[in-house]
């Protein structure tokens, strides 16, 4: 179980092509959630330090914008090549600071690199369009796609590598400059990646990292030179980010929370369904906005499904994610663990039945780890708190319903609309579900609806505030504007 380093020391910001120690005098500890060890200190940078990063990014913008797209693309090809060399170290650092398993971390590292690969196609992705005689006879019309300036991302703890890469490669490849504020709970992975970015050859100021908390975020949202903000996190914060950024004239894409239901039809292929759903509910210890949370059994499949589900859940092996045989790591912090346990307690108080209880889970050798075991709660009803609120832990709320329409009504009663899945062997049921279901991501016999880099990603309703989603063509549109040019020659 090789750790890349035992301790990463005092972390720095990366601004204008230089590693800079914060002068704020404030820092917080970064904890390994499996061992409880302190593995770094992350600075809480000040508003002035953030403003300096914005100024650096703004100064770098004109020259970067004038760099031809193909030349910008070459830097991304170099970055991809360098990231491949760091693949295993990036994954291991992620396990160490976030708690996910090494397989999950490798999967995330792959997704991170895929966004760089897609962004490297910028000469094609950013092409405009034109029409001869488009305005009138002898007057042509062109739509030119142009970058806008400085953008920023405020990132969550659950995907330390990938989520910043949903945004910044597209922004920078399009000719903008960028500032990332990593989650202060998991800043190390992003700083490690930035050392690779530094080697790839981006000019100073094009890509910057400022560590910190809301002071950094507010400065980015309020600074007149920042053109847009991308955010991923909880719904209350996403709402605030959306409102506050928009008030300050920014473009915003703010991804919020989720409460995803996986619907199991009576004709589901049970063996494969259970194996796939295990990954959805317990992968990343349930700390994914795409994770299954409610399990909705339709008709008489409920009892056999539940029996087998509990048996399979008991076999999930918990531990430090660097052990390759581990299926599930801890949740990210003591606070997160307390929150998850609070939800299980509330379900019990409201009359649900705890069939498998992960509240007192212990992993020998990792007594200081923030482990919550797989938890299965039966007799959950739609009005219970556990059926409605985002738990962000390895907790399965089991509901029984009579039909797909009843399940869809339940899904639509939620303020969230991030993802939903159906397990069925019927094409008709699958088609009906994908047609009717009002969520941004639909799974057909797939429990984690993880869009690839070349597809857009975001939810509906309170799971997303904004118009253009992350990744792919949506990202290019978010980070650019269309300029119409009408030309007449006398």
């Amino acid at each position: 179980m090789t750790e890349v380093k035992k301790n990463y020391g005092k972390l720095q910001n990366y601004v204008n092509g230089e590693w800079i120690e914060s002068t704020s005098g404030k820092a917080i500890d970064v904890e390994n959630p499996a061992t409880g060890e302190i593995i770094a200190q992350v600075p809480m940078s000040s508003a002035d330090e953030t403003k300096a990063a914005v100024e650096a990014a703004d100064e770098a913008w004109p020259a970067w914008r004038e760099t031809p797209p193909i030349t910008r693309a070459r830097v991304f090809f170099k970055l991809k090549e360098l990231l491949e060399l760091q693949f295993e170290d990036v994954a291991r650092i992620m396990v160490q600071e976030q708690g996910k398993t090494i397989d999950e971390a490798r999967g995330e590292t792959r997704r991170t690199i895929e966004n760089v690969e897609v962004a490297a196609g910028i000469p094609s992705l950013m092409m405009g369009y034109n029409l001869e005689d488009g305005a009138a006879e002898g007057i042509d019309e062109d739509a030119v796609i142009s970058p806008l300036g400085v953008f920023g991302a405020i990132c969550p703890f659950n995907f330390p590598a990938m989520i910043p890469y949903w945004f910044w490669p597209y922004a920078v490849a399009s000719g903008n400059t960028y500032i990332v504020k990593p989650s202060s709970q998991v800043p190390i992975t992003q700083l490690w990646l930035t050392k690779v970015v530094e080697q790839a050859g981006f000019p100073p100021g094009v890509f910057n990292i400022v560590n910190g908390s809301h002071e950094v975020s507010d400065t980015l949202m309020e600074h007149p030179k920042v053109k847009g903000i991308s955010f991923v996190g909880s719904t209350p914060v996403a709402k605030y980010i959306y409102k506050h950024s928009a008030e300050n004239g920014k473009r915003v894409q703010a991804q919020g929370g989720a409460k995803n239901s996986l619907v199991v039809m009576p004709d589901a292929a049970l063996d494969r369904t259970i194996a796939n759903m295990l990954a959805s509910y317990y992968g990343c210890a349930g700390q994914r906005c795409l994770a299954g949370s409610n399990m909705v059994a339709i008709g008489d499949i409920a009892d056999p499904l539940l029996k087998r589900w509990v048996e399979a859940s008991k076999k999930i092996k918990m531990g430090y994610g660097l052990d390759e045989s581990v299926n599930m790591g801890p949740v990210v912090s003591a606070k997160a663990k307390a929150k998850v346990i609070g939800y299980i307690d509330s379900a019990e108080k409201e009359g649900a039945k705890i069939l498998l209880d992960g509240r007192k889970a212990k992993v020998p050798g990792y007594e200081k780890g923030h482990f919550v075991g797989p938890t299965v709660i039966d007799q959950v009803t739609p009005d219970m708190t556990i059926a409605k609120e985002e738990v962000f832990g390895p907790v399965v709320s089991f509901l029984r319903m009579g039909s797909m329409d009843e399940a869809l009504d339940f899904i639509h009663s939620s303020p969230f609309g991030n993802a939903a899945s159906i397990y069925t062997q019927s094409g008709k049921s699958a088609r009906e579900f994908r047609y009717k279901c009002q969520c941004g991501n639909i799974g057909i016999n797939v429990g984690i609806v993880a869009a690839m880099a070349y597809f857009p990603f975001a939810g509906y309703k309170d799971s997303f505030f904004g118009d253009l989603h992350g990744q792919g063509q949506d990202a290019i549109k978010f980070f650019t504007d269309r300029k119409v040019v009408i030309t007449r020659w006398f």
Partner: protein
Amino acid sequence: MVECDFPECRTFGSVIRFALELEKGAAGVYEELANEPKAAAAAEAFRALAAAHKKRGELLEHTRQQKLNEMILEPIQDMDGTRYIIDTKTPKGADVKTAAGFAARIEEKSSAFYLDSAKIAKTLMAEAARIMEKLGKESLANKAKLEAM
């Protein structure tokens, strides 16, 4: 003796890790057998086998690094890895027949591991299943060659 650390096979990654340990163990044992004076007549064959197993390890590393994503991260339950653990304590002073017999048992366990893993991998990733099946068949062919020595 080649030191190996075989994990429990509970995840896709741990199955690949198990396979990597198999390859490391086999390559190491064959290098040691190639240096056994009494088995000198088969030294070249053992060196070639060791090189082939190292190459297989590289293929597995590549598969793990390039092909993994969360849609295939389903837990693997009820796969008993202990059935496939190979003996990496190279017999000292072995002649060609003893050395080949020892190596054939490694290939036999490897082929069983890969062919069984291929069945599991089929539901997760077709390409991984194809690779495992290929390695399993290769090990079977190696076993036959070793038994003929």
